[in-house]
């Protein structure tokens, strides 16, 4: 099915199941420990050996020699695979560095060997006996000093220019020119990258934890040099990904190589220290923002430049994206520049681009509003645009940013916000901050297979993944709504490369795109069922487990009396994303307390108001948004992968050193969804929320800290040491 005209009324609009705050259908499996995660699939395959990864001890250079003799002789060792033994390996389409390094080393903790043994402890102990000698090469590890040599990236960041930015900025009576920095950040999801690999002849089965099954199967095949059809990926449950599991990583490839060498199934999980330097991370940015306005506060010039780094062949953090669309202004400019750094490879992390981009832009807006003497909510409202400001003939499909801001201001008590440094509650200086949330809505082709079983149960199969987001539940809701059955009569099977290819989970496109694919398949199934029952599909109503046309009413399962009825289809998209800009919007409000003595920063309450199309399940959507708000709070206050610029690695590579928020950091959160449908997005009229929730949070926190203390910090994370010397002296 192709979606190329705006959606009209369809069975989803009944909202009997869709739009309800239902518990997730996989909840009982998870809370009782029965959801099968990748590392635990002993039910699926017996006799699994354990693999342990050895990582490079240098950031850049070459292996000069490896001595495996002691490791090979260690108890229980079945096999050791290094690049020298592995034969020719290719680099996956979605990888920047090789997943098994050697002799060339491209980054710290790049895998250089896998040791396979009977037990995990034996594998780990033997891995400690692998002796590797290196020759270090000089690397580049400091973005600030590499910045001036940065170049225009090949992919992912075209420059944009409308009008004459430089002249308009120079002429603007009120202007801001500031530079902001965001650090490297780790996904730090609960479940590490983990895989079990088993070969049967030349066919590989991989139980893994991966957000994008089809990309993954393709890259496993390419890396190992085997036909794509010989690779099967299964990833029904994922303990968090946040973009860190969009791509195949070392666990999957090394499990496959280890299993081949050992002649046994092999499981590999990355250890926590490995998560930070062996896998991907969100790259640090340096961002310069220039905004000029007239005296009334209308933006006349807006410019945003961003610098980030990556390994050779890598890509930029596209931190200027939102600036092209968020505010009005006739003269506009954005630039993205990419430096070569020899740090571990950068890649997508929740709301890549917008998350760090808004951390800068929305502080700049706060600063400018203050210069103008305009309330920051009003300044944003004043500069709203209902059309793509680079191409005014192209409207937003829906844009209710102003309503988000106004609703939030009202609910949050924004009118009580005082001038910086004026509010005190005991030992706390208290402040409020606001920021706009913005993230584009992406639509992706997505397929599904639906089957009416003889029992009357509807089975849905798609390679869509549930990364903790609620995919199982919203897909079940979609099928239940379309087929007129209760949720309990839908069985959802996900994350298997033998199922039809879905949109996968990434870029907050999963919810709308994957359910639209299920919608398409259900439309076909409805036709097939009506045909079997001798009813006119165009007239048929599916409700209460029955199919009705006029006075005729037949039980749904009657269509499957002589065997299951199966339908498969996909949803693909026409030009609506070109004719209309599809984005999601929100406003974040944050209140912080800053300790008057120690400058410790503690969030007191948070509110998000989101306008993101139809909310398919308000409960799981709220969970997505509050989780993203926590991540935004972490980005604002504590998360930083610290680069040792001499050695070239992230130093704080465990969860004691890389701090993420704990419960005590997040006392109170509220989420409001505006009642909205977007007929341009899909028949579901839905959009994404999982990334919108993080967008702008960091800036709202930073702005609240400024409001509390009068101290402006432009280098994230905002930690007490950056405030301490400038804290107001109190009587």
């Amino acid at each position, binding site marked *: 099915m192709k979606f190329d005209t705006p959606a009209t009324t369809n069975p989803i609009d009944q909202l009997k199941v869709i739009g309800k705050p239902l518990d997730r259908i996989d909840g009982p499996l998870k809370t009782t420990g029965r959801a099968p995660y990748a590392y635990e699939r002993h039910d699926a395959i017996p006799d699994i050996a354990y693999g342990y990864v050895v990582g490079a*001890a*240098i950031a850049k250079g070459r292996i000069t020699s490896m001595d495996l003799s002691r490791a090979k002789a260690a*108890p229980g060792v079945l096999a050791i695979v290094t690049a020298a033994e592995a034969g020719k390996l290719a680099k996956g389409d979605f990888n920047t560095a090789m997943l098994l390094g050697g002799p060339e080393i491209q980054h710290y903790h790049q895998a250089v060997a896998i040791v396979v043994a009977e037990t995990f*402890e034996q594998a*780990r*102990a033997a891995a*400690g006996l692998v002796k590797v000698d290196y020759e270090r090469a000089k690397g580049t590890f400091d973005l600030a000093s590499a910045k001036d040599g940065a170049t225009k990236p090949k992919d992912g960041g075209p420059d944009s220019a409308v009008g004459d930015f430089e002249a308009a900025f120079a002429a603007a009576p009120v202007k801001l020119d500031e530079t902001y920095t965001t650090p490297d950040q780790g996904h730090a999801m609960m479940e590490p990258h983990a895989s079990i690999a088993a070969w049967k002849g030349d066919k590989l089965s991989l139980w893994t934890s991966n957000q994008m099954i089809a990309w993954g199967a393709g890259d496993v095949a390419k890396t190992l040099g085997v036909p794509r059809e010989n690779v099967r990926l299964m990833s029904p449950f994922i303990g968090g990904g946040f973009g860190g599991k969009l791509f195949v990583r070392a666990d999957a490839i090394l499990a496959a190589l280890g299993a081949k060498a050992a002649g046994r199934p092999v499981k590999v999980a990355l250890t926590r*220290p490995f998560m930070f330097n062996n896998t991907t991370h969100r790259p640090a940015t340096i961002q310069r923002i220039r905004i000029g306005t007239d005296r009334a506060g209308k933006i006349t010039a807006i410019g945003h430049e961003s610098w980030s780094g990556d390994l050779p062949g890598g890509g930029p953090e596209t931190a200027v994206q939102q600036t092209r669309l968020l505010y009005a202004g006739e003269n506009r400019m954005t630039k993205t520049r990419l430096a070569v750094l020899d740090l571990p490879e950068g890649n997508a992390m929740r709301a890549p681009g917008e998350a760090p981009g808004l951390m800068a832009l929305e502080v700049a807006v706060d600063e400018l509003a203050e210069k103008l003497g305009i309330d920051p909510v009003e300044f944003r409202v004043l500069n709203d645009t209902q059309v793509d400001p680079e191409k005014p003939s192209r409207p937003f499909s829906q844009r209710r940013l102003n309503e988000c801001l106004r609703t939030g201001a009202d609910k949050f008590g924004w009118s009580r916000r005082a001038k910086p440094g004026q509010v005190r509650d005991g*030992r706390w200086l208290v402040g409020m901050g606001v920021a706009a949330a913005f993230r584009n809505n992406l639509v992706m082709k997505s397929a599904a297979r639906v089957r009416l079983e003889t029992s009357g149960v509807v089975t849905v199969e798609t390679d869509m993944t549930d990364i903790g987001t609620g995919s199982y539940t919203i897909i079940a809701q979609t099928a239940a709504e379309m087929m007129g059955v209760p949720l309990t009569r839908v069985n959802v099977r996900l994350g298997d490369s033998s199922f039809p290819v879905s949109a996968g989970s990434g870029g907050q496109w999963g919810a709308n795109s994957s359910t639209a694919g299920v919608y398409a398949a259900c439309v076909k199934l409805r036709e097939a069922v009506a045909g079997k029952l001798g009813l006119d599909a165009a007239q048929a109503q599916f409700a209460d487990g029955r199919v009705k046309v006029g006075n005729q009413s037949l039980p749904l399962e009657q269509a499957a009396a002589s065997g299951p009825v199966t339908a498969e289809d996909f949803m693909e998209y026409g030009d609506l994303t070109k004719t209309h800009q599809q984005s999601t919007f929100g406003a974040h409000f944050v209140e912080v307390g800053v*300790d008057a*003595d*120690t*400058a*410790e920063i*503690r969030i007191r309450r948070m509110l998000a108001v989101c306008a993101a199309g139809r909310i398919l399940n308000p409960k799981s959507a709220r969970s997505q948004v509050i989780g993203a708000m926590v991540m935004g709070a972490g980005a604002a*206050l*504590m998360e930083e992968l*610290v680069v*040792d610029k*001499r*050695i070239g690695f992230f*130093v*704080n*590579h*465990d969860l*004691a*050193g890389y*701090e993420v*928020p*704990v*419960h*005590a*950091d997040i006392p109170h959160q509220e989420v409001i969804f505006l009642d909205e449908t977007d007929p341009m997005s899909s028949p579901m009229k839905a959009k994404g929320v999982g990334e919108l929730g993080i967008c702008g949070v960091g800036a709202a926190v930073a702005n609240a800290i400024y409001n509390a203390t009068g101290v402006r910090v432009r280098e994230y*994370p905002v*930690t*007490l*040491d950056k405030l*301490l*010397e400038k804290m107001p002296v109190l009587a």
Partner: protein
Amino acid sequence: MRAFTYERAKSPREAAAAVAADPTARFIAGGTNLLDLMKLEIETPARLVDVNDLKLDEITPTKDGGLRIGALVRNTDLAADKRVRKDYGVLSRALLAGASGQLRNKATTAGNLLQRTRCPYFYDTNMPCNKRTPGAGCAAIGGFTRSLAVLGASEACIATHPSDMAVALRVLDAAVETVTPDGTERSIPIAEFHRLPGQTPHVETALARGELITAVTLPKPIGGVHAYRKVRDRASYAFALVSVASVIHKDGGGRIALGGVAHKPWRVEAAESSLPRGAKAVSEGLLAGARTTTQNAFKLTLAERAIGAAVTEARG
């Protein structure tokens, strides 16, 4: 983790003898630090002597009016003890500021004193570290030092001691009771228990090989307002950037010890006479001789301001 043998000792003396006789042996009690270090091969004992059966898990009054805390008393139990909460509030508060409920349930009094630094370079065996390999060098110096020592450090090591409990014990003038393989018992003042790194940062305490901690004793209560102020980037489950253990008396005098700033709990008794004159006065003596980097210089300001907060709060 290397393979190791495991045995359970029957008496303190026997445990001490077992470890004294075997340079590859280590005591294990709660295991909350040692097991993690073994998994990373930072600690590589070939033999573990479990001391959990030694019945050193009682808190009893001493004849001079203090308390004797058995080496195996769990952090949770110590923090909750009524006598500790009443007379040694700084200790209870320090314990509850540390780790998590789960860890405190396992962690012991002696083990808490013996926990090792959280210097990130110590935790990465690819990096040179004089604590792990004497003479190897120190990767932390010149690297990421935000959390590292500003007082009492050396050219060989700038690590800090991570314990909160030890800072409170320091302010309370506790003593560490031990037994050696030949049955000799001694009491080590807490001030002398932890060492500065000097040229031998791998030698962290005054304990001899095999010497086993049997108890920690607290002198009789000293009164005053007890507080433990732990400053950190997140609200819970983080090591201190700076912590202040304080006991402040009505006359403005008292005691102050700092955590998070040195290789041991940091207290300068001579500086405490300045306490009635305020935080700035006492900090001058307490922080004298500090050596900082651009990343950790904030700890001096932070310590002074945290002391100021403690003093103000104590005055009510």
